[in-house]
């Protein structure tokens, strides 16, 4: 290998600093959440304890954290499944030009760029004016889909732009029906990318704040609960909650990444499954 140019070291340092900038604050509150019982929101540490985590689990003084966590988790799963199904169908639809597809495409772009407060305000207004009660699982669910679906579709566009249609043609030549081609050829090939769509669907929903502000009704989701805490909680308990939520996000992300890796490994090991389809 040729030796690294000097610019490599300059850029590597820049990259390192960027990563530090990216993770530094998160690591800081990670450390501060183990603050001793007498400690405050900043350094120095007054000893090391699990006090603030205990407080999270014990009292209900800090609000309905576990209820909001359950709601956020359930909503994340709902949004994830819907995002996968709708994005795959949408991705398949956009593979062929159909009348009006350009309009629909620009609509998707609009959903992506529209300020989140407009969705929050608009969906809230539609529901109240129609006399339908606002609830995280109805109005909140829909409001989140306007953000996760465009991301899911962008992933699907990227996938199908690189998709080799020869596989489908081969299947069709062998007499496979349209559904069989999708079920036994297309879906298995795009499966690892679907994990990506799922990751977007779940995490974007789980962390969504702005779109939920006016659409979640009387029961808060976790980001709303945390946001509420920032205005009235002045102890490191909020760091403890932040650390736990971030740790949970890391676990979810890791689970997705590992399953993509396993899928790719298994595929590489098994090689072709030609002739095994029904």
């Amino acid at each position, binding site marked *: 290998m040729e030796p690294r140019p000097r610019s490599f070291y300059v850029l590597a340092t820049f990259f390192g600093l*960027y990563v530090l900038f*990216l993770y530094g604050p*998160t690591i800081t*509150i990670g450390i501060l959440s183990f603050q001793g019982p007498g400690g405050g929101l900043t*350094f120095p540490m007054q000893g090391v304890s699990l006090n603030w985590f205990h407080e999270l689990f014990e009292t209900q003084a800090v609000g309905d954290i576990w209820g909001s966590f359950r709601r956020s988790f359930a909503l994340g799963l709902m949004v994830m499944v819907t995002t996968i199904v709708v994005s795959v169908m949408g991705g398949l*639809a956009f593979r062929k030009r159909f009348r009006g597809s350009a309009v629909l495409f620009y609509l*998707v772009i609009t959903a992506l760029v529209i300020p989140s407060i407009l969705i929050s305000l608009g969906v809230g207004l539609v529901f109240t004016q129609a006399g339908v009660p606002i609830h995280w699982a109805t109005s909140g669910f829909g409001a989140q*889909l306007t953000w996760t*679906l465009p991301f899911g579709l962008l992933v699907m566009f990227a996938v199908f732009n690189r998709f080799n249609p020869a596989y489908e043609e081969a299947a069709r030549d062998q007499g496979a029906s349209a559904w069989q081609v999708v079920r036994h050829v297309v879906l298995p090939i795009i499966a690892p990318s679907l994990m990506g769509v799922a990751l977007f669907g779940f995490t974007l929903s789980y962390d969504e704040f702005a779109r939920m502000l006016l659409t979640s009704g009387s029961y808060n989701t976790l980001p709303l609960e945390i946001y509420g805490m920032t205005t009235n909680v002045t102890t490191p308990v909020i760091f403890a909650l932040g650390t736990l939520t971030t740790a949970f996000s890391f676990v979810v992300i890791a689970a997705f990444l590992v399953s993509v890796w396993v899928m790719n490994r298994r595929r590489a090991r098994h090689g072709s499954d030609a002739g095994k389809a029904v």
Partner: protein
Amino acid sequence: MQRLLKSADVTGWLLAAPLVLVLAVFLILPVVMIAVVSFWQATEFSIVPAFSFENYEFLFGSAVTYDVFWNTFRYALITWALTLGVGFTVAYFLAFHVRTLTWQIALALICTVPFWTSNVIRMISWIPFLGRNGIANSTLLSMGVIDQPLEWLLFSDFSVILAFVHINTIFMVIPILNTMMRIDRSLIEAARDAGASGAQILWNVIIPLTKPGIMIGTIFVLTLVMGDFVTVRFMSGSQSANVGRLISNDVGLLQYPSASATAVVLLVTVLMVVGLLLRLVDIRKEL
């Protein structure tokens, strides 16, 4: 019937039906509703259907509006310039200086992971860093750079921009990296063989070929910053305003018609910016 089902138009719309349904109910209808309500009037407790230009007259008649819109553009432009600088450099390092694909993927993932965690918490995380007794101030004090804590680190324009850059740089990195990875390496070799210096290759070969990625990143960053209200509210400690905050303040006071009027103007502004940028890039081709 058979022929009908085989037509590309029908299958296309059938497959897109769920997408259309979601967008119709949760995007088109709400935007129409906002447009309608922006002509309504508000009493103290409720909103009343009407057709009045009162909200717009008030909006355009108030000096605050122009200040706030200017502030929004200012945040957007500064954040754009910073995210572009940082994002381009990071993507350039990953694409051209990291040699194996495995490392490229691993390092890109390290940059992406925070995007999948909570923004609210990432904003809270700046407090122990920037506060009056925070890490930044105590480090600078102990190094003797300053003799008293800097007050403008937290709850200022500085912290707002810092948080914007922190959260949004990834939206520059990924599209730019995506375009850079597809640049044919032989073009760079050809430039080098023809005697181009590193700077010339960067300026005359890589940057022009990276433009689509830069455009996509620009669309993301500008629209996210222009539409934001949480970051500004939180990081400025309610001391600065942008259009998003103007809207959310009105919402807080149940002044939905005036919030809607501001929202309509914001939406038109954002769509104009995006429309302008979309003329410069074909998004679908670039994914």
